[in-house]
């Protein structure tokens, strides 16, 4: 387990995340997101969390990002849209940036408190994770499956082709529906 690799990978992930967040093009943003996720997976591997790293690549970068890709495929991106997004970005960044920096600043003092002690920690085998998940955390897993079911049903409903009729009454003449 190498913390140093993890730190480097984490730093790269941060850089990629920044790119993802600040690019005006959806596709570029998506690729940056993929990069961030994959570097995070590398970080997980470096930390000895093999299962998490594998899941990250398979599901996070593989399925979730892929869904994003499907959706991005359907949009038409034009220069006008990009320019509009860029201009908006230019206008509004101070306050959120301040908030973000504030958050980071609040955590920084933790660095001071940390002492350079002996290296502790071990790689956690998958077996331990599975024992946990099917053991004490079984109820949580069930709840998570509820959540997934709800999400699936919701997505299926929202994604129907034929929309429900609009909530407004169709416009009628003065004499009522003739």
């Amino acid at each position, binding site marked *: 387990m190498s913390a140093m690799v993890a730190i480097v990978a984490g730093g790269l992930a941060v850089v990629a995340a920044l790119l993802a967040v600040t690019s005006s093009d959806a596709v570029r943003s998506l690729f940056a997101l993929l990069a961030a996720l994959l570097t995070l997976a590398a970080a997980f591997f470096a930390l000895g969390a093999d299962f998490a790293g594998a899941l990250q690549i398979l599901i996070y970068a593989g399925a979730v990002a892929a869904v994003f890709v499907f959706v991005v495929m359907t949009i038409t991106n034009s220069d006008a849209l990009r320019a509009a997004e860029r201009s908006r970005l230019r206008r*509004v960044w101070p306050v*959120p940036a301040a908030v973000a920096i504030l958050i980071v600043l609040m955590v920084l003092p933790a660095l001071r408190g940390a002492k350079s002690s002996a290296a502790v920690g071990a790689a956690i085998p998958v077996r331990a994770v599975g024992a946990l998940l099917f053991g004490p955390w079984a109820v949580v897993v069930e709840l998570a499956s509820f959540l997934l079911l709800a999400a699936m049903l919701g997505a299926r409903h929202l994604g129907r082709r034929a929309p429900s009729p609009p909530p407004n009454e169709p416009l009628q003449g003065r004499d009522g529906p003739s």
Partner: protein
Amino acid sequence: MSSNFWLLLVPVPTLAAFMTLAFGPFWLGPSQVRAVALAGAWLTAALMLAASGVCASGTCHLLAPVFTVKVGTASVALALILDPLATVVGTTVAIVGGFVISYSLGYMARARLADLRRFFAYMNLFLGAMLTMVMAGDSINFFLGWEMMGLCSFFLIGYNMSLPRAFAAGRKAFVITRFGDVLLLAGLLLLFYEAGGVRIDALVNAALVMPPGRRSVVAVLLLGGALAKSAQLPFHTWLPVAMAGPTPVSALLHSATMVAAGAFLLARFAPLFAATPEVLAAVAMVGAFSSCFGALVAVFQTDVKRMLAYSSISQIGFMIISIGVGAPQVAIAHFVIHAIFKSLLFLSAGDMAYAAGGRTDIAALAGSSTRRPIAYFSFAAGAASLAGLPLITAGWWSKEAILASAVSAGPLGEILWSLALIAVALTATYATRAVLVGAGPSTLLARPPAVPPAGIATNAPLVLLAAASLAGGLLVGPIVRFLGAAEPDTPAFSAIVGAAAVLLGVSAAFALRRHPHLASRIARARKVRQGFRIDAVYQQRFVRPFRHLAYWLNGVRRGGRSSGIVDPLGAVPVLGIVWLVRRMIHWAAVDRVDRVWMRLAGMVPELSSFSRRSQTGRVRDYALSLIFGIAALLLLALKSPRLPWH
């Protein structure tokens, strides 16, 4: 009960007649009403004649006290007196009153019973009031009589209640004379304050010791009252319109007696005026201007009663001139003569107008010499006296006395003399003109309805008065001497010039007759005929603003109805209080406490709309608020050694 108690009885018959006719609960037939009225007037006249006999024979300063009241340090002692002035004026008033009431018996023959009673009641009341004033020995009786005369004048002018013109005329007369009465009252009160008593001799004596400035003020105030009552400039506008009353009223009140009361007042307080020479000079000037003005406007009149009204203004102006030059006795002599011929003129003119179908314009008099000969010839006699035909008429003698007293009164007197001469000439003109019109053939287009010839009740006074107006010249000297002054010696040139003026006026009237185009020029001079529109100026300047003030004080909007209760002076504090309360309510109705609550309640929607702005509907704003909320919670919860509350 003093020995002169019988003096108090002199006005009693008239007052008793008034009470009987006005308040008597019993029913009286028309002949009974007339009898009561006649009795009242003639009994009083008889008593007055008796009093004058007493006065003429022996001592003539009798005092009959009425009662005495002590008010603080002042003593209010009411009394009636009989002195030469009171005797002369009182006798004249009583006899002329008797004649007029006799005449009215025929004139009012066809009035309704209620109106008849009303008329004779007021006439008798008037006679009683005038005699009270004439014989008053103190200012209270004097003022009482004065006011009652004004009141009767109002009622009698407005006798014909169905005629709005009559009521308006009565109101105008009342208001103008009331205005003068206020001035008179102020003067009398100032004198009372100085004198501490009300007897007229006490007042006059107090006035003589007053500082000159105050004395002049009092004199001017008394003069104001006299001028208003006597219809002199500038208070003359009521007299011409007062002719809307019946002819006997005009004959008695507005020619012979009441309008001369102003001159009587000035004569009564003559010592006071003698002590204020500048006021006296003003008096004389006012009289001179009034006489010229009245005579001038009278020439232009087309209505005989109006002509006689302006003539009264002019003749009383003569009286005032002689008072102003310091000869009040001559003025009283002229008063007597004027009472005789002016009432005669009115009565005869009334009779001729009745014969002409009720029309009172001068042109209607034409043909009266054949229609109503007695009335016409008495009218001619009266007109001759008015014009002052030399030597044969009483008017000549009294007017000459006036002119003589004027011309011998210094440089101002000569100016007055010239003005009076102009007035004399004009007087002769209009007097002769009326007579000449009457002498001519009837110019009426339609024959007037034949009326029965006048009875003895009408003709007797006319004849007697005509005789007196011709022969009364013999009385002038004795009257003046009786009143305690020497008869003014008439310079020869004044007599000759006076006669010339009269004849000039008469010939001018003949000339007018012969030159009709001049007459038509006169007929067209409307502005002069309306008295140079002085009345219109008064309407504009005084009456209209006052009306607006009265309406405003009584809360009447324009064209609205009043509450019917007229109390301007009481309305002022009420209006003030109402305004004040309204202001207070306006201030307090704001309801400060309620305002606070309303503001609090108003803050709720304000807060709501303010808070609503945070609901932007934008995802990123909601995200931001989420962040802040969670951050706050975490800060509170997480154990970090740097935070003070952990």
